[in-house]
């Protein structure tokens, strides 16, 4: 099966007054139809910037190198006009904050209508009925009534549903969800996760789910890419990555999470696993492995000079790869 979206050796650097901030440093992944790819990382890991790069939504101070192809068409280096056409027809996006993504002074109908008209010529009546259909599809009751509403009249969850409806307007083959449930309460998040899974089943979309929440990833992803300092440090099928994390960073992240269904009372629990220090400044990345100053496994001379490349994790399926010299030690 050929990939819908292929990112190959993507680099993004922001020009600043001082040294350039190297935010994405050689990211590669593939997304297949009907599959969910999760890109996980903490703030500053480059996970959001990489998705903005392939959508052509970065400011002019960003230098983007590498390749990203959608359905065989190259996205990097395209003009704004071409990108808009590709985006509209093929890639839908849902961002974190539905309040700032929606225009506060336009009705929901206008905003969905704009998205619809961007792809095809439709009459006003056509827009209205199609917009109402979309709202129903994303689970908004009384769709016809809600079309006349303004964003502030809707709850956060409802606004995010509207954003999803707008993303669906062009019948996309790929949906990029960038921290799409981060601002929502967990019970609302559960609704949105369920909705996206249903839409994915019905439309066969490929979904790129960008998040910091490993719990969400465990529930929805097929394949996971863990990012640190702009690189993929580990990737693999969700079961393998969570079951046998091979990179010390992945392992640290998993250990840092409290687990709700741990039956022990608080006083009998172990401390959460912590990693010392902070993620590096993208304008001053450490030489060698970017994680080595925080690495709990080991940091020797090699770590500080030679950046480890993604390599298959011994004993796992071939697609499980990690960028560490100590995969075996970590997995043990």
């Amino acid at each position: 099966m050929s990939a819908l979206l292929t990112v190959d050796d993507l680099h993004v650097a922001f020009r600043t007054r001082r040294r350039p901030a190297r935010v994405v440093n050689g990211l590669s992944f593939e997304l297949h139809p009907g599959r969910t790819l999760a890109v996980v990382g903490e703030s500053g890991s480059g996970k959001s910037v990489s998705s903005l790069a392939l959508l052509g939504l970065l400011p002019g101070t960003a230098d983007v190198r590498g390749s990203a192809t959608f359905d065989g068409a190259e996205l990097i280096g395209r003009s704004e006009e071409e990108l808009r056409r590709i985006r509209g027809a093929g890639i839908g996006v849902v961002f974190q904050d539905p309040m700032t993504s929606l225009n506060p002074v336009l009705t929901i109908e206008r905003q969905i209508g704009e998205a619809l008209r961007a792809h095809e010529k439709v009459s006003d009546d056509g827009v209205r009925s199609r917009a109402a259909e979309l709202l129903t599809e994303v689970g908004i009751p009384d769709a016809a009534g809600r079309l006349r509403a303004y964003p502030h009249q809707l709850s956060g969850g409802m606004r995010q549903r509207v954003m999803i409806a707008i993303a669906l307007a062009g019948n996309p083959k790929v949906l990029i969800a960038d921290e799409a449930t981060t601002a929502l309460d967990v019970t609302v998040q559960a609704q949105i996760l369920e909705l996206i899974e249903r839409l994915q089943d019905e439309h066969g979309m490929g979904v790129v789910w960008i998040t910091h929440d490993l719990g969400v990833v465990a529930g929805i992803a097929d394949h996971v890419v863990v990012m640190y300092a702009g690189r993929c440090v580990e990737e693999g099928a969700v079961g393998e990555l969570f079951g046998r994390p091979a990179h010390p960073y992945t392992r640290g992240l998993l250990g840092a999470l409290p687990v709700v269904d741990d039956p022990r009372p608080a006083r009998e629990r172990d401390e959460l696993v912590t990693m010392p220090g902070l993620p590096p400044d993208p304008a001053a990345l450490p030489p060698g492995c970017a994680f080595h100053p925080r690495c709990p496994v080991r940091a020797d001379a090699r770590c500080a000079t030679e950046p480890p490349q993604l390599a298959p994790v011994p004993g796992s399926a071939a697609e499980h790869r990690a960028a560490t010299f100590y995969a075996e030690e970590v997995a043990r």
Partner: protein
Amino acid sequence: MRAGETLRLLFRGPTAIVAAAVLLVLIVTAFLGEQLAPHDATGTDVSNRLQAPSADHWFGTDELGRDVLSRVILGAEVSLRVGAVAVGISLVAGVLIGLLAGYYGRWVDDVLMRLSDVLFAFPAMLMAIAVLAILGPGSTNAMIAIGIVYTPIFARITRASVLSVREEVYVKAARSAGAGDLRIIGRHVLPNVTAPIIVQTSISLAFAILSEAALSFVGLGTQPPDPSWGRMLAEGRGFVEQAWWMAVFPGLAIFVTVLAFNVLGDALRDVLDPRQRQAMAGTGVTA
């Protein structure tokens, strides 16, 4: 945000440097006054009246034979003093009113801000003239009058900033630790509302100097024989055709001073606005 960093950013462009240099020269001139003046500024010498600019009298002489350059130099002291004291009055009164109104809100706010609305509603000059009509003319009273006129501006600016700072989490944090109103206002609110006040001070100094000139021009400010730029302008008006220098040089002095204060005020606004500041510094802070 510290003073050193602020100054470094402020003086990155040439305009702020020039403005500050001009003001520095003016302040030094005001302080040295008598020593700098080449001639006696008040002594009349009718035989030497209405001389055009020359090597001896760079700015010429006026209708009583007084050296215009010397009078402009001594006028700097008068203008700056009146401006500084007047703005000092409005700064202290306005900031105090703004702090109280903004911090306590409710009826305190209503009373204080309605009062300042009333003051604000009159044209500034008319208001100053009215105050001087009550107090009588003279440079001291001119300072008071100008100070009263500019008080509402400071009150408004302070109040607006206080309203937002009052809601900051760090203010709540201080309250949760047991801090009283006085401590919160003095240690947390006031230091965090200084930026717009500093900017306004610079701009108000320009307006106050202009107002002093205007009041002196109409005879309500500085009284003869003291040299004041506004007064000199008024006196020179009658001689524009015979002796253009009598009005032009004090006029230029006013123009340059007001411009310098305004330019510096604008530059300060850019530097003290955190959003502007970040853009100027190039990158955000990553600690």
